């Protein structure tokens, strides 16, 4: 078996804010096989976006990062600035959430797509970059001439497609999609998901898909990892985790979101009350216990480690 | 506990919290400290310097030397007609501070009234008032002040009036947009549906939410007023009978203090203005941050 595309070991990330240090990731371990797809789910504040940022070292200056992140055989966290810049976008690229703010409002979308090609010299000159930009736009379903448009001239769905095209500009090996369907209506969501699926097959991409909407993940991902309070609390094959969750949190999440196209799931009761804990202020023991319908006394004492809960499955709960 | 005293308690608590927040800002506290010092100096003027020293006849009678540096005649020497510069500094602070404050009060008052009416009433009144505001904004401030001062004559009250009448537009705009924001909030609608009249809404709901902004703006308006008064006095439009810092600088300039390098004559007044303006700016910026916190940004 070849080595994984992405390998994360004991990753800890602590932000330094005005209110003191905030532990956003508290020991994350995961592997992503080449050509595989992993869905990463959790509510806001669980650390999933931090994880995405940590992989390419895009976290704010002054953030403490410990552990190991190996991408395509290279330890990203120890690369020198030049090496890091070379790896960005060519080994791993991010599809950001398509709000107006991910694109520079005063430059054309074509410019912004072509930019990494010219920086990394994957296009020989501007003409070639332009040609590639147009073909990328067409691949994601937009006419090539829209390259001359400014971001505010595009709809939300169109901007999301631009961000996908942009992420593919340097033919990355790993594609991280960070909440790419949030704030889009359901029809467009489905289209974007289908597009990502197709692209993955065509280009043999390794895909990491981050969202808070569990039902979206089951569509596109072989494996699923659920995050809570800075750690992975469950992990396993996609459909299994969704249909037959081991961890109470996953059960709650799965019940909260209707599956696209499945009308009956809309009628099922939602399972999660309360709010996720703030990263600087975690409860004693298992951080989920205040909201857990199955909590018992032992849950307030010690945080459970990930343990096997089935074939190629793990969950961090004492009930497993 | 009645409803009103509950509201009062809450307001007092908010005020206390705001003060605590203000206290934590080093800039704000420095500004406040400086201001207090100058305010005390202005108030204690009679104790610090004999007001008769401002009278050239008196000064001559005292046998003061002309153009004397501080080494000869303390603490700040004398000017071209033998008057004590220290006396001018101390008594001048009164005029400069007073005019600065009074002019800002007038500016803020006019600006707030226009802004609140404009924002609250809306419609044609709003459109008309905003047109007028825009026109005033376009007219260059200093020339207008000069023209008005030339026409109205040289007195302290005219200067205050002129500054107030030329500076209100930016306040009006700011207040108006804040009023519009507040108006959109639900509780104003609720108050209306409860049958509350316009005045009630304005005083109970709009004013408290706008007053923070107005206060910050007022504090920042004072430096502008002081600098304007200084400039107007320097150009000869000041009150001939008062001894503002701007007047001191004018007399220094006109009578050749620079050629003589009589630094004790033109330095103190300018430094005084600089420090007071800085103090108000620091306080104003701190208040602004408190009224409009920008959480993602360090200053």
């Amino acid at each position, binding site marked *: 078996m070849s080595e994984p595309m992405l390998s994360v070991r004991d990753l800890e990330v602590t932000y330094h804010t005005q209110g003191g240090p905030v532990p956003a990731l508290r020991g994350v371990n995961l592997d992503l096989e080449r050509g595989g797809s992993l869905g990463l789910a959790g509510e806001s504040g669980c650390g999933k976006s931090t994880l995405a940022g940590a992989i390419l070292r895009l976290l704010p200056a002054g953030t403490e990062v410990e552990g190991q992140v190996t991408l395509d055989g290279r330890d990203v966290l120890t690369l020198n600035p030049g090496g890091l810049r070379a790896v960005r976008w060519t080994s791993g690229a*991010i599809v950001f959430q398509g709000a107006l703010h*991910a694109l520079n409002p*005063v430059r054309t979308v074509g410019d912004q797509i072509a930019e990494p090609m010219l920086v990394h010299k994957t296009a020989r000159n501007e003409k070639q970059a332009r040609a590639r930009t147009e073909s990328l736009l067409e691949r994601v379903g937009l006419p090539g001439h829209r390259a001359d448009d400014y971001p505010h001239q595009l709809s939300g769905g169109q901007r999301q497609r631009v961000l996908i095209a942009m992420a593919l500009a340097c033919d990355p090996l790993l594609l991280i999609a960070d909440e790419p369907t949030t704030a889009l209506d359901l029809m467009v969501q489905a289209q974007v998901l289908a597009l990502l699926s197709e692209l993955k097959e065509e280009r043999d991409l390794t895909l990491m898909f981050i969202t808070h909407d569990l039902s979206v993940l089951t569509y596109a991902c072989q494996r699923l990892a659920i995050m809570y309070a800075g750690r992975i609390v469950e992990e396993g094959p996609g459909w299994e985790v969704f249909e037959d969750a081991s961890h109470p949190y996953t059960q709650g999440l799965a019940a909260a979101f209707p599956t696209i196209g499945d009308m009956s799931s809309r009628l099922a009761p939602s399972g999660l009350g309360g709010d996720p804990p703030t990263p600087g202020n975690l409860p004693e023991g298992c951080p989920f216990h205040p909201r857990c319908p199955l909590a018992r006394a032992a849950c307030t004492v010690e945080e459970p480690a990930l343990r096997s809960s089935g074939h190629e499955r793990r969950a961090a709960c004492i009930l497993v | 506990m009645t409803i009103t005293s509950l509201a009062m308690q809450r307001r007092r608590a908010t005020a206390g919290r705001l003060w605590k927040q203000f206290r934590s800002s080093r800039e704000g506290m420095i500004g406040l400290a400086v201001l207090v010092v100058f305010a005390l100096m202005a108030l204690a003027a009679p104790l610090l310097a004999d007001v008769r020293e401002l009278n050239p006849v008196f000064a001559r009678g005292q046998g003061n030397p002309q153009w004397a540096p501080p080494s000869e005649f303390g603490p700040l020497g004398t000017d071209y007609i033998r008057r004590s510069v220290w006396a001018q500094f101390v008594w001048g602070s009164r005029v400069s501070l007073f005019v600065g404050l009074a002019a800002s009060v007038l500016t803020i008052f006019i600006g707030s009234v226009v802004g609140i009416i404009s924002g609250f009433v809306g419609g044609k009144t709003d459109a008309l008032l905003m047109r007028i505001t825009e026109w005033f904004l376009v007219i260059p401030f200093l020339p207008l002040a000069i023209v008005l001062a030339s026409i109205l004559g040289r007195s302290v009250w005219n200067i205050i009036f002129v500054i107030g009448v030329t500076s209100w537009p930016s306040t009006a705009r700011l207040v108006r947009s804040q009023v519009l924001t507040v108006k959109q909030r639900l509780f104003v609608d609720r108050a209306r549906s409860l049958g509350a009249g316009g005045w009630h809404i304005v005083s109970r709901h709009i004013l408290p939410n706008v007053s923070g902004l107005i206060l910050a703006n007022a504090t920042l308006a004072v*430096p502008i007023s002081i600098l304007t008064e200084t400039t107007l006095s320097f150009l000869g439009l000041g009150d001939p009978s008062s001894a503002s810092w701007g007047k001191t600088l004018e007399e220094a*300039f006109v009578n050749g203090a620079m050629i003589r390098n009589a630094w004790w004559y033109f330095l103190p007044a*300018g430094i005084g203005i*600089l420090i007071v303006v800085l103090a108000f700016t620091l306080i104003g910026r701190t208040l602004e941050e408190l009224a409009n916190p920008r959480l993602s940004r360090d200053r």
Partner: protein
Amino acid sequence: MGRKALGSALTFVFVLVFNFFLFRIVQKDPIGSLFRGRNVPQETIDNLRTAFGLDEPVLTQFFYYVRETLQGNLGISYQSRQPVWNEIVTAIPETLVLIGVSAILSALIGTVLGIAAAWRRNTWKDHTITSGTMVFYSMPDFWLGMLLLVGLAVVFPVFPVGGIVDAGSNATGVDRLLDQLHHLFLPALTLTLAYLGEYALITRSSLLDVMGEDYLVVARAKGLRDKVVRRRHAVPNALLPVVTLAAINFGFVLSGAIAVEAVYSWPGLGKATADAIRGPDLPMLQGLFLVFSAAVIFFNLVADLTYAYLDPRVEDS
């Protein structure tokens, strides 16, 4: 664009009306003032009054005013007995030179400082720049002029004390130009220092706003160097409000330099204003006020158009 120009024209009309009626209140008897202290027969005065249309109703006089103004006739200066227009026209280039040089320098230096301060936020560099510029911005500009004058023209007589050329100088050509530049230095330095603070603070503020934006993270994610991210993505967005400020400022700096010109006896509009105040030379003041207002209106229009040109988000109508 046509709509904006129309708006500006309307504002100018308002200024004309304002100007006319403002001075009407004061100039109760212009002819009488003109011959103040001189022994002129009443008949002559009456005839002149008729000739100038001063016995006509106010509205008619207003129309005369507008007509004359648009033809460039702004009246006669009380002090110099010369046409106001001539005096103003001679003074405009001098002020333009001074303002132009100062505005460009303060905009350039101020913006650079602002960018440096924002990029190194909260370091000593940032604090020095912010505090330093705030200090300059808080002092009366003419006082700064006085200090520089004493420092560099009296104590260390490197520069001349005032005027635009050495008195009694017959120099021509390059020599004359050098002499003028020599005289220009101190007043330009004064204005530059006084105004660069505003540019620095606004640029810094604007850049800090931009720095929180996601597209900068995206740019770094693409593998761009820090400097390139700043230059290509952050700064252009941050500069939009600064450009508008610069254009608007130009109109206001014109009148803001009044006191500084007075300090240095720089023969521009500012000095003319300062001299006119001492009269008071009301026709001059009226004419100058018109010119200052027109300048502000004009540069506001320029600012509007420039911003619309630079920001693709502004729709062309």
